[in-house]
């Protein structure tokens, strides 16, 4: 049918199907800014303005738009122009993955149209219907306030400041320090005492006062503008002629053998092009976790199997002309299941009589499939039992962390097609394009060279896309039909058939002396990997690595048993085992401090590691080999100082603050947790970058690094711009396309700034050398003392030549040469970032409700290459962590059905209920990282859970050793007290 509407100011006739949503109709009409994140009106990504009011389009029928005015962000700006609201969002760092940004921009517009002077509360309220999984809403709220000021015609402060001292960035002589032999630093030649070397001759542009031009500045993200304008940047934002829609048939049973499948009725349905089951494709064993070759074992999956192991497991996949036909076809598939008993609790899975989940003979590397034992990890350092015997006190307790879902707003989506060279193109929302290409090849029987994986912008990943989750199915369908195929998860499938955080029972035993010295730590873990072992070994190892690195001790021991259960598989999730380990550690540390009569903060300060300390557990546990790890930079004590000041830690001792006379049922408390993470996997993670210079002195950069919204493209571009003395806008960065860019392991293990940034810096140094040589020739001088700055190459005598002139000379005039460089970077060091997490709680003693008014985290991430994106990571990470602490946890019924299948039931913080979140950056200089940088992306996941539990104890004296702290558990705790 035909509808008539005013679309972005233009009278428009649209042909729509009467039973399709307005969302579908708008996207078909090329309005790509309207996004899909659910099908229930709960995420807000699909919002538009209808007659000036914000409304969701996924729960509106297309014909209902007839006669109305519809506005989307496409209507707000033209090429080369930007609306003040969009501008404010880019300037304030409010755009991370950008998937929710168009909706937030429209929400802002609706608000400001009504209220020119919005309050912070108005701003939060306006954003409350748009779930953002990235930002923690801090910067979007700031963007609204800035946009309102701009639209009122007020002067707004420029966004700048920052920079780091040149002498630190470039060394006194202008020499880069990346890749220097690190053990020398340990011998005292560390970056931090450069200042004392008075006798060193300064490089011409390095003075004690001068600051870097690009690194350390809050530059606008290189992709922010296109995302704020709603440009077609994501996987789904293309239209391919002849594209088929795929739909999965998933298991309704938690555990069953497929006796037979009959697909004849489905195949007979008009418009169906392929129906694939285990009978149709070769059986190739693999592991879906996106990790380096050879993938850690077990290899326990096949693309389609004759057994299903959880509700939501793959049974068959269909490709059809429309999504509706595909869905109808799925219903016509007859499956004869032999239903088997399920086991859902990892503590039961190893017991005699438990159903055996992996009884297939061809799985590789399962230590004891008959007991559902996926992996066992052991590590010791020194004689733990001997040290325990010497301790004054030994504490022991068990802690549980839940199955949290990544819940990126953009679902998993893959589009596959043959290109003109008959190579398979896989356009996919992945964090690991290179791993995906390598892992996909054997499954579909194509060599790596015939596969191209393209990663467009990603609408959030958080580890959920560090997985080859659906690419194989789409590819199989393209192989079967020779047509483009699109496969996207629904939100429900994200809950039933995707990955999640490994739930863990973590038992800590800690030996201490009465003077408060920690002597021995023993950690044992029962991890629940669900039906497949994806990431199970490495996640458990990281839990131990993080649980046993933070505090000094004389002896350490780690043991983990990882079990299969009939639940959706766990996988990678931001923090990767660390939040699980750190929850137990930081709560037991709190318990010990209280028990020994120490202030919990002082107890932490006393025992935490510091610069120069050895991290013995990393050699015993590390994925990447046997290189000894040391702390080369550490601002932890300063983090404690800053964050304690900000949260006003001393309020704990003020009885008037703790009980509010107006609301006597409310108790207040404060909690603290130490955070320490890793940066990349030492000796394993690698990234590459290549740079070429253009005629105008700009640079094309290709990196394998996978920006999933975190801003890594920007940070890499900043590192290159600084090194090449140009502006950020002179860098044109293209990331993650296996045909175009160098290899990179992908976006995980907090590695991108450090590893990919390291490769970018090395490549830029190669280019810099070539530029300087060319410039020296042009200026008829030597390269000695020559440097690049302000788009110029300066000679020691002060004369200069522009980068453009260098480029033109090099490309066109004499000794023609393409100035370019390629480099890769791998590090044997995984320098830990540190953090101090503080949380304030209000507990309603009658209902058990816990409200968190405020969270503060101070982080030492070395140099924050971009303080705006770094603080964005810390804010958003804290809110994600608060979800795990307070409300997020997937629960199952006795048959293995997950109870939360939509956002309404799976509770993610929204803007109007999110706490006031503060991120503080404590600068240090990490000698092994580019411009002194360490990681920042994962550490904010580590401290909130334990700090919440500790704060609740502070408020009401009830110790909660299980997350999330649902109000009923708190209430029961109060009852039992």
């Amino acid at each position, binding site marked *: 049918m035909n509808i008539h509407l005013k679309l972005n100011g233009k009278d428009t006739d649209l042909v729509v199907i009467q039973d399709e949503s307005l969302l579908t109709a708008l996207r078909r009409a090329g309005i790509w800014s309207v996004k899909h994140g659910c099908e229930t009106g709960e995420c807000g990504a699909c919002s538009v303005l209808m007659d000036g009011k914000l409304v969701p389009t996924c729960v509106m029928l297309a014909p209902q738009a007839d006669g109305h005015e519809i506005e989307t962000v496409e209507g707000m700006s033209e090429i080369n122009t930007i609306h003040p609201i969009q501008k404010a969002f880019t300037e304030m760092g409010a755009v991370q993955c950008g998937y929710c940004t168009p909706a937030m921009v429209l929400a802002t517009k609706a608000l400001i149209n009504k209220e020119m002077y919005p309050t912070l509360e108005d701003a939060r309220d306006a954003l409350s219907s748009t779930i953002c999984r990235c930002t923690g809403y801090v910067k979007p709220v700031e963007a609204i306030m800035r946009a309102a000021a701009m639209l009122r015609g007020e002067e707004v402060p420029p966004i700048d400041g920052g920079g780091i001292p040149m002498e630190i960035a470039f060394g006194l002589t202008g020499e880069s320090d990346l890749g220097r032999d690190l053990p020398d630093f340990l011998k005292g030649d560390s970056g931090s005492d450069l200042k004392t070397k008075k006798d060193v001759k300064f490089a011409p542009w390095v003075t004690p006062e001068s600051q870097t031009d690009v690194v350390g500045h809050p530059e606008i993200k290189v992709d922010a503008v296109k995302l704020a304008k709603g440009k077609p940047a994501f996987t789904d934002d293309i239209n391919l002629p002849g594209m088929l829609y795929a739909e999965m048939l998933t298991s309704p049973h938690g555990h069953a053998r497929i006796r037979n499948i009959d697909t004849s009725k489905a195949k007979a349905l008009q418009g169906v092009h392929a129906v694939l089951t285990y009978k149709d494709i070769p059986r190739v064993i693999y592991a879906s976790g996106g990790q380096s070759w050879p993938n850690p074992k077990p290899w326990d999956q096949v693309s389609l199997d004759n057994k299903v192991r959880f509700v939501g497991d793959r049974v068959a996949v269909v490709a059809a002309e429309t999504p509706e036909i595909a869905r109808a076809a799925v219903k016509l598939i007859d499956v004869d299941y032999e239903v088997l008993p399920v086991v859902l609790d990892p503590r039961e899975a190893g017991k005699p009589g438990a159903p055996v989940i992996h009884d297939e003979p061809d799985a590789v590397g399962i230590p004891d499939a008959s007991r559902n034992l996926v992996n066992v990890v052991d590590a010791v350092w020194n004689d733990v039992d001997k040290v325990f015997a010497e301790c004054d006190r030994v504490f022991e307790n068990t802690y549980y962390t839940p199955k949290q879902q990544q819940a990126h707003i953009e679902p998993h989506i893959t589009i596959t097609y043959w290109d003109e060279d008959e190579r398979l193109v896989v356009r996919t929302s992945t964090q690991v394009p290179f791993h995906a290409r390598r892992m996909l090849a054997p499954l579909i029987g194509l060599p790596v060279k015939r596969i191209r994986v393209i990663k467009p912008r990603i609408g959030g990943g958080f580890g959920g896309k560090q997985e080859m989750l659906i690419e194989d199915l789409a590819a199989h369908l393209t192989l079967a039909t020779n047509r483009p195929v699109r496969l996207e998860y629904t939100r429900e499938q994200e809950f039933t058939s995707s990955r999640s955080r490994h739930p863990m029972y973590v038992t800590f035993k800690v030996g201490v002396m009465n003077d408060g010295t920690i002597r021995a730590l023993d950690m044992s873990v029962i991890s629940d990997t669900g039906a497949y072992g994806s990431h199970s070994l490495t996640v458990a190892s990281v839990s131990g690595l993080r649980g046993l690195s933070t505090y000094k001790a004389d002896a350490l021991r780690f043991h983990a048993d990882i079990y299969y259960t009939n639940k959706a598989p766990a996988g990678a999730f931001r923090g990767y085992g660390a939040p699980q380990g750190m929850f137990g550690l930081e709560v037991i540390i709190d318990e010990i401090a209280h028990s020994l009569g120490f202030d919990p903060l002082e107890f932490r300060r006393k025992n935490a590691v510091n610069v120069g300390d050895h991290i013995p557990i990393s050699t015993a546990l590390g994925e990447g080999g046997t290189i000894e790890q040391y702390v080369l930079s550490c601002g932890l004590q300063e983090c404690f100082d800053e964050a304690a000041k900000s949260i006003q830690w001393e309020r704990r001792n003020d009885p008037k603050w703790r009980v509010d006379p107006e609301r006597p049922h409310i108790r207040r408390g404060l909690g603290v947790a130490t955070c320490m993470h890793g940066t990349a996997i030492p000796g394993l993670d690698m990234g590459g970058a290549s740079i070429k210079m253009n005629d105008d002195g700009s640079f094309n950069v290709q990196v394998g690094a996978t920006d999933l919204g975190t801003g890594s493209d920007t940070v890499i571009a900043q590192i290159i711009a600084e090194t090449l003395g140009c502006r950020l806008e002179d860098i044109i960065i293209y990331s993650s396309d296996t045909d175009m860019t160098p290899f990179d392991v992908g976006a995980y293990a907090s590695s991108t700034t450090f590893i990919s940034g390291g490769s970018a810096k090395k490549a830029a140094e190669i280019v810099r050398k070539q530029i300087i040589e060319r410039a020296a020739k042009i200026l008829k001088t030597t390269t000695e003392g020559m440097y690049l700055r302000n788009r110029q190459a300066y000679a020691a005598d002060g004369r200069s030549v522009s980068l453009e002139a260098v480029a033109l000379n090099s490309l066109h005039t004499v000794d023609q040469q393409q100035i370019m460089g390629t480099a890769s970077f791998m590090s044997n060091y995984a320098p830990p970032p540190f953090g101090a997490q503080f949380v304030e709680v209000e507990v309603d003693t009658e*209902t058990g409700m816990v409200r968190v008014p405020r969270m503060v985290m101070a982080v030492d991430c070395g140099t924050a290459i971009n303080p705006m994106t770094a603080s964005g990571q810390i804010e958003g990470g804290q809110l994600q962590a608060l979800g795990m602490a307070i409300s997020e946890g997937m629960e199952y019924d006795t048959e293995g059905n997950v109870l939360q299948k939509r956002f309404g039931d799976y509770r993610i913080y929204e803007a109007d209920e999110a706490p006031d979140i503060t991120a503080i950056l404590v600068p240090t200089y990490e000698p092994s990282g580019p411009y002194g940088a360490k990681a920042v992306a994962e550490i904010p996941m580590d401290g909130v859970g334990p700090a919440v539990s500790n704060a609740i104890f502070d408020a009401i004296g009830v110790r909660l050793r299980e997350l999330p702290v649902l109000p009923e558990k708190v209430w029961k705790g109060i009852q039992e007290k």
Partner: protein
Amino acid sequence: MKPAPFDYYAPTSVEEALDKLTELGYSGKVLAGGQSLIPAMNFRMARPTALVDLNKVKELSYIKPTADGGLAIGTMTRDSVVEDDILVNERFPILVNTIKHIAHKQIRNRGTFGGAIAHADPAAQLPAAILLLDANLKVLSKSGERWVKATDFFIGPFMTVLEPEEMLAEVVLPPMAPRTGASYQQVSRQKGGYAQAAVISTVTLDGSDRVKEARVALFSVGESALLASKPNQVLAGQVPTAEAIEEVAAYVAKNECDPGTDIHGTEEYRRNLVHVLVRRALIDAVQQAKK
């Protein structure tokens, strides 16, 4: 995402709509704001074969004062319009407060006042609000109109006395008595999410601060919204002391609600919530009445 196929009609008058509903009988379904019906269809929990969309029936969207000081609200009036309306703010501030707890503005921009009532979700605010406010509902069908008291309207979860060929057309709210205070109390995990337990109450005081009438409506704690009778039995004619209110709250929690155990909490816990919330609501309403 596209729901299962269905026929779609968009009448522009009440008459046309009623004709269509009569013609379709059990296979027809009214589509109002769609904020409950379409998610249910997308989630494949509802599969109507024909929809009668009332969005183009302009005559169903209004807020009119009634002569006695109450209000008449047309079924298709959007929640956000009711929320922002000056008359509603003047005469029924508790209704405004209640509506603000429904989802988020974005949903309230689409969801309709009558739709939420006809939907009869036991966890929804408006059914409880109209019980509390003792509303009268105008129900239309081709054969004429009938009036149903709010207390007679709901018969179970998502079930009302409406016949398939009928539509809810108007909700009439009688005026609030002078010296009436009101309070909205809920416990929910999310500000805009469904409540684990919630209470709305009004207390009317006489000149000597004795209770003339105490009304307590509950939702999310039973098969439909509930009106508790004990509060008025105990408190009417009395000075509302803390002890009396506590007695009422304990009684209501034990005897006048029926919360089951679900993913949002166990029965024991939710009865505790009712106890706490009824107490808080009554204390607050008394205070408001005294202002």
